[in-house]
């Protein structure tokens, strides 16, 4: 509806807007601005106007992407804003399709391994951390995956450069050699990359909170489709559930004070200084009041699963580290989620005790081997923030999805593309319910959630087909490499560049990290001279042997991948404090400078 130009103009105008004058704040706040402007997920293509409208707390419109092809595999997405507990929808989402490829093979079509990333972030106490994670986490994940690329995707020519000398480059040059000797499985490295990325994202937010306005914290759930499998990494109380034939199969655990009680109590017991005498690591049944002083009370310590009696002493009147049960449980009487990102500044609403030491950014990673499973068009992964799950159970979710998919059957060519979007919308609708007076009510008359809700419904078969096609082509590519075809058919970076080389079609196709900025691309030798995009595609077709050797089909995948990528003016990969500060500063000129307060 609104042109991109208008958007750019708006941003430009927003960008020159003067920083708000600070009359009462400390000096530092005068210069602090958000690192990332508030926005809705990139694939919604929202203009400012639409961001405003989508935050209508009375109507709570259920938002779906207007161009559903912006999400890979026609996956569904739907969201709705809360009923007024915060001005903005504090959930965020991100989708990326990228290619894992080493620098030296970037120019070889099909050498890189495509992967797809979905993420949901449920912000609290401000939207800053969630927005930051939605803008950056995928870059950190990519960097961590690149660090272990030798274990995920061995080089086409093994043992060539010494780095991979420890691998046996003898018999096969295929999948069998993807594991080095004394190998850890690929799973271990991808899991490690995800765990490390969460940790680094949290540290990054901690650093940025000192330099920018970046409030609050967020939960984080990531679904990574790579190497033939689905990896779900979760920290917080968002949830991922695989649904098949109307049945749910959880792919994550919730991390709340209730489910992490043991960890929290143990930490409190081992580091009592964190409690500063305001809280106790003991658990009571029931929690004693002043009237019970000197009387027998039921309690248990961290090393106990059973219960015992003690005499109530003054220190037993302190607030337990974990209070309440289930969804209502609270850590240090304040927060209901115990893993996630951010919250560095968070303090207990009683006693002002710092809470961050008790929070964890550790991702729990669960793996589903898509390649090895028999799945069909109704197999999906549902990822949702807790707004969904507070009202809609896993079982009900699987039923709703099945019902929605039947409304838009796979065989209905005209409408099948809406099936997952419709399922996502139905799930949000079920948890939000309808307005009844000042409340929200589900169809069954039960209360709807007043929280933000965001949901992905991701079909699993498209990745399976994509992976199998890629794997076959990559295998062929490896065979060609090992058969030592004439150098004219395969370019390696070591070869001097000639005009003949320019005829090689792979140059004209996007490879590698699709969101890498132009400045990064110029560092590859192939970018010298002629613009690669000007190479006519006919040249490709006129060389049948090369055409066979390389992968037309993957070319399509790569091009598709580029289309769905979010425009990113800066590559915000963060390696250390220095560079992150630099990228952060560079990223700012395009964003409206406004003050969060």
């Amino acid at each position, binding site marked *: *509806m609104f042109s991109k130009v208008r958007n750019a103009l708006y941003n430009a105008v*927003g960008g020159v807007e003067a920083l708000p004058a600070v009359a009462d704040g400390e000096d530092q706040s005068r210069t602090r601005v958000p690192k990332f402007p508030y926005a809705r997920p990139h694939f919604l293509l929202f203009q400012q106007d639409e*961001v405003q*409208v989508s935050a209508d707390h009375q*109507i709570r419109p*259920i938002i779906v992407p*207007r161009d559903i092809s912006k999400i890979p595999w026609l996956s569904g997405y739907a969201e709705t804003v809360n009923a007024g507990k915060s001005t903005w929808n504090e959930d965020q989402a991100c989708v990326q399709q990228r290619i894992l490829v080493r620098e030296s093979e970037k120019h070889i079509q099909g050498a890189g391994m495509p992967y797809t990333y979905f993420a949901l972030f449920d912000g609290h106490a401000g939207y800053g951390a969630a927005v930051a994670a939605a803008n950056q986490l995928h870059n950190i994940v990519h960097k961590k995956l690149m660090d272990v690329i030798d274990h995920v995707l061995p080089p086409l020519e093994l043992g060539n450069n010494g780095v991979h000398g420890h691998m046996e480059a003898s018999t096969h040059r295929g999948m069998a050699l993807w594991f080095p000797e004394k190998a850890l499985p690929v799973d271990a490295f991808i899991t490690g990359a995800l765990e490390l990325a969460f940790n680094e994202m949290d540290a990054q937010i901690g650093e940025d909170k000192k330099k920018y306005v970046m409030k609050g914290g967020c939960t984080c759930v990531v679904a990574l489709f790579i190497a033939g499998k689905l990896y779900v990494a979760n920290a917080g109380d968002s949830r991922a559930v695989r649904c098949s034939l109307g049945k749910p199969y959880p792919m994550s655990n919730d991390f709340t004070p209730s489910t992490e009680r043991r960890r929290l109590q143990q930490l409190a017991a081992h580091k009592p200084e964190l409690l500063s005498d305001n809280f106790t690591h003991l658990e009571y049944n029931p929690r004693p009041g002043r009237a019970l002083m000197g009387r027998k009370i039921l309690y248990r310590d961290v090393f106990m699963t059973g219960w015992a009696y003690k005499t109530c002493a003054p220190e037993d009147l302190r607030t337990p580290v974990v209070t309440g049960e289930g969804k209502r449980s609270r850590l240090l009487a304040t927060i209901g989620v115990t893993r996630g990102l951010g919250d560095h500044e968070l303090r207990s609403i009683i006693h002002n005790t710092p809470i961050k030491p008790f929070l964890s950014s550790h991702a729990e990673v669960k793996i589903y081997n898509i390649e090895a499973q028999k799945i069909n068009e109704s197999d999906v992964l549902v990822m949702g923030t807790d707004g969904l799950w507070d009202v809609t159970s896993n079982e009900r979710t699987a039923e709703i999805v099945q019902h929605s998919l039947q409304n838009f059957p796979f065989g209905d060519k005209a409408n099948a593309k809406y099936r997952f979007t419709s399922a996502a919308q139905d799930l949000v609708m079920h948890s939000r319910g309808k*307005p009844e007076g000042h409340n929200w009510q589900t169809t069954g008359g039960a209360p709807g959630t007043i929280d933000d809700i965001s949901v992905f419904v991701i079909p699993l078969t498209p990745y399976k087909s994509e992976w199998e096609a890629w794997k076959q082509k990559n295998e062929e590519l490896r065979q060609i490499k090992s058969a030592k075809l004439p150098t004219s058919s395969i370019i390696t970076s070591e070869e001097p560049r000639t005009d003949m080389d320019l005829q090689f079609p792979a140059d004209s196709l996007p490879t590698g990290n699709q969101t890498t900025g132009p400045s990064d691309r110029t560092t590859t030798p192939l970018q010298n001279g002629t613009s690669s995009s000007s190479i006519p595609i006919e040249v490709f077709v006129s060389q049948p042997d090369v055409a066979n050797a390389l992968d037309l089909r993957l070319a399509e995948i790569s091009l598709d991948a580029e289309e769905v990528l979010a425009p990113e003016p800066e590559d915000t990969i963060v390696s250390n404090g220095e560079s992150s500060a630099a990228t952060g500063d560079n990223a700012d000129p395009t964003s409206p400078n406004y003050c969060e307060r």
Partner: protein
Amino acid sequence: MSYAYLFKYIIIGDTGVGKSCLLLQFTDKRFQPVHDLTIGVEFGARMITIDGKQIKLQIWDTAGQEAFRSITRSYYRGAAGALLVYDITRRETFNHLTTWLEDARQHSNSNMVIMLIGNKSDLETRREVKKEEGEAFAHEHGLIFMETSAKTAANVEEAFINTAKEIYEKIQEGVFDINNEANGIKIGPQHSPTNASLPSSGQGAGQGGGCC
């Protein structure tokens, strides 16, 4: 740009009658022959002038498909105007008007101005619903009526603007309580939109104040 009032519209009617195309023609002045199915709701906005006053129309374009009907119903609330659209080349879309109207009356505020629109007036040769029939239906139910073409843009401006005029008149007559946002009318912000811009502005466009 600052405005004196913001009016909230909703566009309803059967699937394929051209709701999204009407919106696109009005906001972007272009026609898109093949339009994706609307799932849920989409938004558009445009500034118009009535009686020398800047009025911002915020238009909610809904899904016409039966499968989404219950979701569409939740958007009637808080709309000051509704465009109820049928397709003059498809009789059944006209026959369903009663159902749509019942839905609208039941879920909206009673003062909502409803404009009945017979769309696709450019397809005269395929016409199945006479203009007189549309007029009669509108008269019977107290609606304003127009035939439009989202393709040629005929009457599209008029449809949106006449609805706004009707709402504006009702405000002048004191029928609408403009301080109750549930009526789909907001008084414009006192300041330039930089103040109303994201996200420093709390609840969005300003309360109170107003330029009128």
